[in-house]
């Protein structure tokens, strides 16, 4: 279709044969997802910049009488998050194949993974071993984990609604949306790994 288009031939351009289900950058919604990833990414950049700015202030990091963060549950969480990408890769693959039955199954698994991570995030907070109102170190650590936590929670809510609609009123559009939600998941993993290193390992080395 597109190869045949040449405005110079001055004929009207019939677009009725164009596809209505496309994936990735060809799809308009993908750009919206990318836009919001960028915005959320910027808020995380602000958190990281503030983290290092506050660390540069006089005094030790973490401040005296403040325990180092624990590594146990946060490490379990980050490993689980990375591993769950295998599920999302399946989601993306069956979505591209337009296989509704398989997509429904894998979306259920993915939603379950997402739900499991909400209590895990709570354990991440406890593992900081400092309260948000103890000192600026505690404030920025809570904020960083919390910002990413809002992504986790809203994503879980979204997946719940999406999976329900997928079972009750599915359209082809949902294949594209499912692929986008896998894309978003990769992003959530990609940003959390460095944040995890910064928040839980950083105070040990800084």
């Amino acid at each position, binding site marked *: *279709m*597109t190869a045949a288009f040449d405005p110079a031939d001055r004929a*009207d351009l019939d677009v009725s044969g*164009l596809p209505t289900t*496309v994936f990735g950058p060809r799809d308009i919604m993908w*750009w919206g997802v990318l836009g919001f990833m960028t915005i959320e990414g910027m808020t995380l950049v*602000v958190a990281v910049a503030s983290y290092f700015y506050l660390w540069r202030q006089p*005094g030790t990091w973490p401040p005296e009488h403040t325990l180092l963060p624990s590594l146990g549950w946060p490490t379990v969480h980050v490993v689980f998050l990375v591993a769950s990408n295998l599920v999302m890769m399946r989601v993306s693959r069956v979505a591209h194949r337009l296989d509704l039955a398989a997509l429904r199954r894998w979306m259920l698994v993915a939603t379950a993974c997402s739900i499991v991570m909400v209590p895990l995030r709570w354990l991440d907070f406890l593992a900081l071993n400092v309260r948000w109102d103890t*000192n600026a170190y505690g404030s920025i650590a809570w904020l960083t984990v919390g910002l990413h936590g809002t992504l986790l929670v809203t994503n879980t809510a979204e997946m719940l609604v999406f999976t329900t609609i997928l079972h009750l009123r599915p*359209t082809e559009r949902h294949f594209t949306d499912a692929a986008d939600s896998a894309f978003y998941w990769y992003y959530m993993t990609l940003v959390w790994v460095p944040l995890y290193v910064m928040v839980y390992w950083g105070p040990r080395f800084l």
Partner: protein
Amino acid sequence: MRAVSPSEITRADDRELHETLERVWGDRPGLVGWITTTDHKRIALRYIVTTFVFFLLGGLNAGLMRLQLSRPENDFLGPDAYNQVFTVHGMTMMFLFAVPMMLALGLYFVPLMVGARNVAYPRLNAFGYWVFLIGCLLLYTGFLTNTGPDAGWFSYVPLAGPGFSPGKRSDIWAQTVTFTEVSGLIAAVEIIATVFKHRAPGMSLNRMPLFVWAMLVTAFMTIYSMPWVASASLFLASDRLVGTHFFNPAEGGDALLWQHLFWFFGHPEVYIIFIPATGLVSQLVSGFTRRPVYGYPVMVLANIMQGFLAFGLWVHHMFATTVPQLGSSFFTATSAMIAIPAGIQIFCWLATIWHGKPQFRAAFLFVLGFIVVFVTGGLSGVMISSVPFDTQVHDSYFIVAHFHYVLLGALFPFFGAVYYWFPKLTGRMLSERLGYWHFGLFFVGVNVTFFPMHFLGLAGMPRRVYTYIAETGWGNLNLLASAGAVLIVGSVAVLLVNFFRALRRGDRAPDNPWRAETLEWATASPPPSYSFLHIPVVEGRSPLWERSERRPVVTGLSTEVRDTLVTTLVDALPDSRHYDPRPSAAPLYAALALGITFITLIFTPWGLPIGGAVFFLGMVRWAWPTLRSYREQLRYEEGKA
């Protein structure tokens, strides 16, 4: 020949098409249609009207300040009132007028200029407006109940922090910022996606109108800058609400962190206003000289260069703090360098005017006024990039003079755009004679008001003072500045008269009253709900000036549902079709839920779980397809609709 505008219909099938498209793209009548609309033109017009109302209110605040300062030791306003007035003036002009007005012009005209029937995400667009409106109402509810923010639009800590601003005034600042930034970010995403994926076939990137380029650069800057202030206001709100210590030096926090975060946003913010203004100037210059703007590629590059440089000079707002001297030299150099792209733009416009045939319309006079006022502001801007000079004039009235020259410099093209686009928005022509009066009063008023302020600043008058003692000798120049403000008020009054006169008995506007080059003029004034009867195929940079025998158009889009054309990013080749959802009240519900969340958060941290739950319900309502739209979409995907 196939019609693009309903006013060109000659064929029976086009007439039928017009009626079908009106049914599909039109809104339901009355209040329901008003609430549920997702038409970018209606929403952007709403933004424009709302921001203009707040421009008038912000101007009223300025008038109160000029009245108070007109003589020494005046007791018209005390510090408590004055501090709220100047803070709300700054917030109004920045957050409720200048930035959203520029984005609103983008939301109205970018889709029309690229030949799209709507923005990329119509419901999100409606949501953005409602969120914006809630933010505006929050600020003015606070202000009118004596709870207006009073620590400056920059809200420096610790003054705005928990220790020195008890009460809710600073919290209103923080949440107003949150609301307006959310809506600004949404508008930016809309503009980027619309420009990237909804351009008419053939409008490759190097054929986009300069205004569209300017809005694209602006939208990117918005996305990279606004999260900084949104995060900073989150830090501030949590310091105040739950006792975090981001800005408390006693617990490892730092007051200067706030200034870095705020100005990393705050400086690009100025360019978020200025860059669209340059886009407006380009459209006005080409429209009223009947010439394409000279040096298209360098004009685009100048905007991009400004976009990058704007992020590299925030520290020049902090030269009087303890930032290291060596770093300051870097920021002096970048601040001065931004004069280069601005110079390139000025010279290219001058070259265009030189070779063109100027039409002395009111809109064009504003272009001339812009060049004089903006260059003046730019020159004082270069001066204050110098650290030693800035340490003298920083936070003095010299700065007030400088940034009003720059920002009102951007208001000139805006007023020019008002005369240029009013016919498109309303279908009526504004009076040119009143336009001359508007321009004359405004140009003289701006200079009489703000030029003396340079000397007030040099004579030692600090900013944000509610009064001054007579012995300082600042009285005369302040009186002169206040007299100038009267002229500005008069000029805006003339504009309002012009509006009402035009709406009641102005001449009917044709499709293209100025014989301009871009696609918004290819359709009726005001445009129908579907914007273009047939989406035009673009063959050059000035689609309406190309002399073509036969203008090709797009055919084959569905006429039963809101079917939109998606094109490729660089070359705008037709690539796929996209189903746009029906109008819906869900964006309003979701915005109300968000409003409840943030406003409850002013009072208690429980706002987060409560608001989160309400917002979740709003999102479910939004995402859930009605049976009707579900069936419609299935038919669309099967190719039957």
